[in-house]
């Protein structure tokens, strides 16, 4: 468990020590993934449901893979939520989950707070895989994990997060997690995409991308989406690329070994230049691999104690305490 939590709804709710515990657990699972047979029985006998009310490829695959690597049974549900009203769907879905005896629910939903609704109404553990424009905690965790792997620490790092902060759940989760662990976060993006009183997150708001990149250890570049309904927020992708796009020229202001991140999918040539995306400092594919390990850690910490048989006997909370707060983790060899 993460503390005594049933759910992972956002990084805002987590203590720094809980985040560290997830990262440490993810480290172990990362090693598992490099084995010839990258599978452990930790969640054997448990069933996870992946409910995606909003289109997603990589997050859904990543969760499903994480569940399978932990030997959980998985069921998937994907809808665009078109004909039925969203509320009804969610309510009915919750009832169905209850009836089917599912242990873990991974939910992505277009409404901020939808996972919170499920968490209130279900005994099953709920993992937020992205809710509206609120949080995407496992993405935040995998970004932080990737940074820690690369730079060895989080404390004191200068991290720039660039783009549409207002509509970005990735930004919120990153900001909460990074600031809790002592990083210094600077954000930049169009003023129309800065949420109200954003500085109260404990971040610096730079006037330009150049200013935000100055001396940065890490830059996390958010995907820009200029959809029809947001047409009042910005003019064109061309203008965006010119003012906010990260090019190798701009990147010179950052540390020479700056870690370049992007949650994907990328608009190459818009928010991120081709050579930056594929450059030597880019860890974008590492993020994807780490995502599986981080999600395994979250699933395991939330539900490992519920698992049946051998796995359960090997993962008691008591062992966790013995190891100075290090979560116990003995994947079967």
């Amino acid at each position, binding site marked *: 468990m993460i503390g005594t939590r049933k759910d992972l709804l956002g990084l805002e709710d987590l203590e720094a020590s809980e985040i560290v515990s997830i990262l440490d657990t993810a480290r172990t699972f990362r090693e598992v993934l490099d084995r010839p047979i990258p599978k452990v029985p930790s969640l054997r006998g448990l069933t996870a449901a992946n409910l995606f009310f909003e289109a997603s490829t990589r997050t859904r695959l990543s969760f499903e893979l994480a569940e399978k690597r932990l030997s959980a049974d998985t069921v998937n549900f994907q809808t665009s939520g078109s004909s039925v009203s*969203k*509320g*009804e769907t969610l*309510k009915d879905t919750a009832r169905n989950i209850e009836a089917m005896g599912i242990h873990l629910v991974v939910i992505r939903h277009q409404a901020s707070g939808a996972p*919170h609704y499920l968490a209130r109404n279900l005994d099953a553990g709920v993992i937020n895989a992205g809710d509206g424009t*609120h*949080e995407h905690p496992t993405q935040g965790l995998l970004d932080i994990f990737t940074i820690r792997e690369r730079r060895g620490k989080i404390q004191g790092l200068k991290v720039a997060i660039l783009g549409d902060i207002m509509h970005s759940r990735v930004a919120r989760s990153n900001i909460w997690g990074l600031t809790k662990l002592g990083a210094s976060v600077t954000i930049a993006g169009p003023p129309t995409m800065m*949420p*109200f*009183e954003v500085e109260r997150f404990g971040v610096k708001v730079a006037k330009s991308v150049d200013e935000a990149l100055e001396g940065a250890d890490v830059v996390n570049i958010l995907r820009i989406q200029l959809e029809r309904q947001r047409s009042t927020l910005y003019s064109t992708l061309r203008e965006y690329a010119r003012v906010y796009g990260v090019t190798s020229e701009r990147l010179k202001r950052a540390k020479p070994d700056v870690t370049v991140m992007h949650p994907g999918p990328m608009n190459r040539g818009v928010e991120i230049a081709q050579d930056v995306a594929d450059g030597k400092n880019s860890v974008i594919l590492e993020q994807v691999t780490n995502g599986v390990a981080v999600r395994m850690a979250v699933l395991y910490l939330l539900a490992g104690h519920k698992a049946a048989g051998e796995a359960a006997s090997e993962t008691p909370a008591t062992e966790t305490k013995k190891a100075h707060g290090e979560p116990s983790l003995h994947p079967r060899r």
Partner: protein
Amino acid sequence: MASPLCIRGGRILDPVRGIDRVQDLWIQDGKIAGLGEDAPADVRSNKSAEVIQVPGAIVCPGLVDIHVHLREPGQEEKETIETGTRAAARGGFTTVACMPNTSPPLDDRPRIEYVIRRAEESGLARVHPIAAVTVGQMGERLTEIEDLVDAGAVAISDDGKPVRNAELMRRALELTRRLGVPVIQHAEDPDLKGDGVMHEGWTSTRLGMKGIPDAAESVMVARDALLAELTGGHVHVAHVSAARSVEIIRRAKARGIKMTAETAPHYLILTDEAVEGYDPRTKMNPPLRSAKDRDALIEAVADGTLDCLATDHAPHTEIEKDSDFDAAPFGIVGLETALGVLLKALVEPKHLSIPELILRMTANPLRVLGLPGGTLEAGTPADVTIFDPARRWTVRAAEFASMGRNTPFEGWELKGLVLLTMLGGKVTYRAQPLEVSAR
């Protein structure tokens, strides 16, 4: 002549006439007969008089709520005129004005007459319908305002939506001016509101919710103040939620512009922080705003910038409200919690005395609509509310008379329990137990 009724031992409050004293209230034939010695001797000496003992209770004119949604016709799954007025009686209200955003909207004479007839059949409250400004509330073509007012409409409003077109608003004000009825504006710029679901502030930033800036309301209030000045018409601003709107209304009044305004109990006690947890029972439009806004509203109620209090009682079904925040409809019920919440928000912290509060829940709202009443003067209909200001009770939505259970105050302990509500001398609500005796 029927037997008179004497309400004894209560503190009589008639703020319009400056009365605040313990005295008998005599009622005869559905009308107020008089207070204490002022009641006719033959009434006071009538041997068959019935006496209701209400020691320690407050006896005041029946409460008035000029902003409720009774949902009938067309949305009877949410509320009916009967259940809505039953809720009114339980909350101490004897008069309500209902908004026209029914299905279909109250935009022609038969529908206005229907509401009046249904209310009379129920006999639980005086119901004054408010007619639509535009046909179907579509914001395009004016309704037959004179015919609607003639049929009994006391105001016009497209509530639920603003009158967006400034020229249409201008013409509506010009046409209503000679009729002496206000145009009640749901002040909101629809573009600024966008698809926002809560107040735009730090809480919406944290929760990742689409925000509605306070300017969405204030921009429209400012526009309407200018149009009221241009036309000499009367704009009444519904459910004011923002400090900036208060500032504009205050200045408009100082300039002699005919602008009145109301706010609702929830804006005086809750802030946007209540939305934490994504509970759809905290979702209404306009949204709960910042503590600064709340404080400005309290001040404006106290200094009279905001003329009256109104609940914006907006019942919805449990199914609709039991969902994620975005999918839930805007609105909460208010009739059965208003008095307790207002006592807590305004009287307990000493922003207002009880008589000052009662004035803003009785005569003041009636005056906004140009209606008489709101006093305990002899000869007027005996619309009376009796409540115990010290009695504590706990809000349990399941016990509401309203079909709507969507209250943010579930489980709150409130002080101030309605004991009895009387409409034209007839009891419409009586709390158990209340001592009634023959003389």
